[in-house]
């Protein structure tokens, strides 16, 4: 609304006072607004924080006090966002600053749409304080394009009632996990001891990393997928073996996505599963009886310790179309550090992208907060930060591997070799 109303005013004043320069006003949406009137246009994804409107009203006030510029926040649906970014990049109408999903940042950086942030971040003196997994995800061509803002992480969530009845403790090693699954299956033959979903790549990588394997590594300009290394295969073998050999999962899980895991867990049918730090609310929403009946532990490494897990979240990115880049970074800094970052984390249920802000969270004794926070700080990782990783996801390379193993169509060696070859080829853009 405000946008539509402001336009004619700008155009009219332009025509009256600066007739000669009106042509410049027509050069493009985002650009014109940040030019003369000190406005910063920002896109934020909808739905992360239920109180986003109020939150940004406060941010706007603070931002205007600090910089004298006004903030123009537009909320964008996650589902439409990628298309909107692409078309606005094409038309040169990108906002000055936008929230970008961590896997999109390298892609937009590769398209030449984003401005590197290293200088600004160094200037603000926060380089050392950023959560590593998010920096990794926002780094493209050795430059930082995405400022870590917030993220969630997946850990091992378990049904405390089932665990108590079966007389087992939450596992800290793979051997313990398998024992717990066996005990759960004995106590609850009709339930799923551990859900091993076939169409959920982020539940697979912790086992690959936990065994010492790699999803993909960059050497010079060339990516190589490590999904078929002996270590990775051991991890995949263990995870899928829980289903194929132990029978601790279910037939249906072969084609499950993470949402299916959530549904089954919320129904009380699952003993343990890899689930996100943002899911506890949804579980209780789906089934109020589950309140207080589940907890989390960090995903165990093979012989103990914490297996790394993907940090899923958002960066704040600055677009090349931003006229006043210092102003843009002033906003980014305000959002990602200090009070507002903390407040956003509390309201949305995600973790802030700065280690110092997590101290408070780490002290929490809540069984649904502390383990996730521990996983976040000590066991956070990123998917390969390649512009082409989105293409790997679209091709469902990892899910294809998982499904063929779980359905018995292929063994781990064959399936992981095919997946690694495909991933390497797509990551390097050679089709």
């Amino acid at each position, binding site marked *: 609304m405000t946008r539509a109303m402001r336009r004619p005013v700008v155009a009219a004043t332009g025509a009256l006072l600066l007739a000669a320069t009106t042509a410049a006003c027509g050069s493009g949406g985002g650009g014109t607004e940040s030019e003369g009137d000190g406005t910063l246009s920002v896109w934020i994804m909808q739905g992360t924080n239920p109180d986003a409107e109020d939150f940004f009203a406060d941010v706007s006030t603070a931002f205007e006090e600090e910089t004298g510029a006004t903030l123009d926040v537009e909320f964008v649906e996650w589902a439409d966002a990628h298309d909107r970014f*692409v*078309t606005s*990049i*094409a038309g040169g109408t990108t906002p000055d600053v936008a929230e970008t999903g961590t896997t999109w940042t390298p*892609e937009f950086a*590769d*398209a*030449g*749409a984003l401005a590197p942030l290293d200088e600004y971040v160094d200037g603000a003196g926060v380089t050392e304080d950023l959560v590593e997994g998010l920096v990794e995800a926002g780094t493209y061509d050795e430059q930082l394009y995405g400022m870590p803002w917030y993220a969630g992480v997946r850990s091992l969530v378990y049904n405390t009632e089932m665990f108590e009845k079966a007389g087992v403790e939450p596992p800290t090693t793979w051997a313990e996990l398998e024992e717990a699954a066996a005990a759960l299956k004995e106590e609850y033959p009709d339930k799923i001891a551990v859900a091993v979903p*076939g*169409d959920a790549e982020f539940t697979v990588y912790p086992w690959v990393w936990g065994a010492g394997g790699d999803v993909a590594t960059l050497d010079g300009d060339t990516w190589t997928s490590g999904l078929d290394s002996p270590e990775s295969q051991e991890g995949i073998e263990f995870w899928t073996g829980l289903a194929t050999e132990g029978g601790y999962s*279910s*037939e*249906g*899980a*072969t*084609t*499950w996505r993470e949402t299916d895991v959530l549904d*089954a867990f919320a129904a009380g049918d699952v003993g343990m599963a890899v689930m996100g730090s943002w899911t506890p609310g949804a579980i209780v929403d789906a089934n109020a009886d589950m309140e207080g009946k589940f907890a989390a532990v960090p995903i165990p490494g093979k012989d103990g310790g914490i297996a790394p897990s993907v940090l899923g979240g958002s960066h704040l990115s600055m677009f090349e179309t931003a006229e006043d880049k210092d102003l843009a970074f002033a906003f980014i800094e305000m959002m990602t550090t200090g009070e507002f970052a903390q407040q956003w984390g509390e309201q949305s249920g995600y973790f802030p992208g700065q280690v110092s802000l997590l101290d408070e969270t780490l002290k929490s004794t809540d069984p649904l907060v502390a383990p996730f926070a521990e996983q976040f700080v000590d066991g956070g990782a990123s998917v390969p930060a390649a512009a082409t990783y*989105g*293409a790997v*996801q*679209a*091709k*469902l390379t990892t*899910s*294809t591997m*998982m*499904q063929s193993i779980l*359905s018995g*169509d292929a063994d781990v060696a064959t399936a992981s070799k095919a997946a690694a070859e495909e991933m390497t080829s*797509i990551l390097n853009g050679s*089709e």
Partner: protein
Amino acid sequence: MTETLPRLGRARAALVRPWLLLAPALAVLAVLLLWPLVRVFLFSLQDYGLREITTGEPNWIGTANYAEILASPELWTVVLPNTVGFAVLSVAGTVAFGTGVAVLLASLGTFWRTVTSSAIMAAWAMPAVTGTYVWVWIFDADRGVFNDVLMGLGLLDDPTNWFTNRWTFYAIVLLNVIHHGFPFVAVTVLAGLLGVPKEMLEAAEMDGAGSFRRFFSIVVPQLRQVFAVVIILSTIWDFKVFAQVYLMPGGAGSNRSVLNLGVWSYVESFGQNRYGFGSAIAVLLTLLLLVVTAVYVRTVLAEEER
């Protein structure tokens, strides 16, 4: 001399007038259909991705996209067999079942015909997405009705995941598509059936023709044009089935043995930001459907002339 001139003018006017009258419609079609088609064709000759969109510069690669498509082993071993095989079965199934229902409807009284056709309309009106989820739920491995019934009857010992096998996967898609597509056939054929002259059927009955003979020797030839329309439209729809496959568990690409042309082109082009490649697939699909339609229309017309 003086007489031929106006006659020529009149002939020319007669030639021009229809086109003048059609001009507005043709102009709209050209803008809405022809120009996008031309654009798609132009994209198909480029390596067109996010970078090309950003810079706005064309990136011509000639027919490399087409060469890549036609050289893809996945296309010939999985995608095309799935697409063509499925289209043949589902067109046959839809038309056969729809015709059967039409015959049933024609023999019902007004009241029951209204009730039955309303029920059919419900199946037709159901969005493809909703319908697909209902079938997925019925065949769900752990909580589905189908597995429950089979296990209850002792025909199955353990739950089976019907979505992981190529044949059972497509059997479910087939049920879904036929269920969604038959009402159109039934309604269209019913309209034709009601137009078949009663006298001919009575005469045939007097001559001792049984009901099957009457149906195949009198009704079917009378309805040839109706069948032509129904078959062509069903073929086009069933060739480009997308949602009914994409939304099934494993159908979005993680089960490579069930890829069809629609899903394959989506995953390979839009998923990879390779818009040029996707355009080339779209062009090929359009040509393929044009050929199928042309061949069919010709056969129908040829029979008509005879």
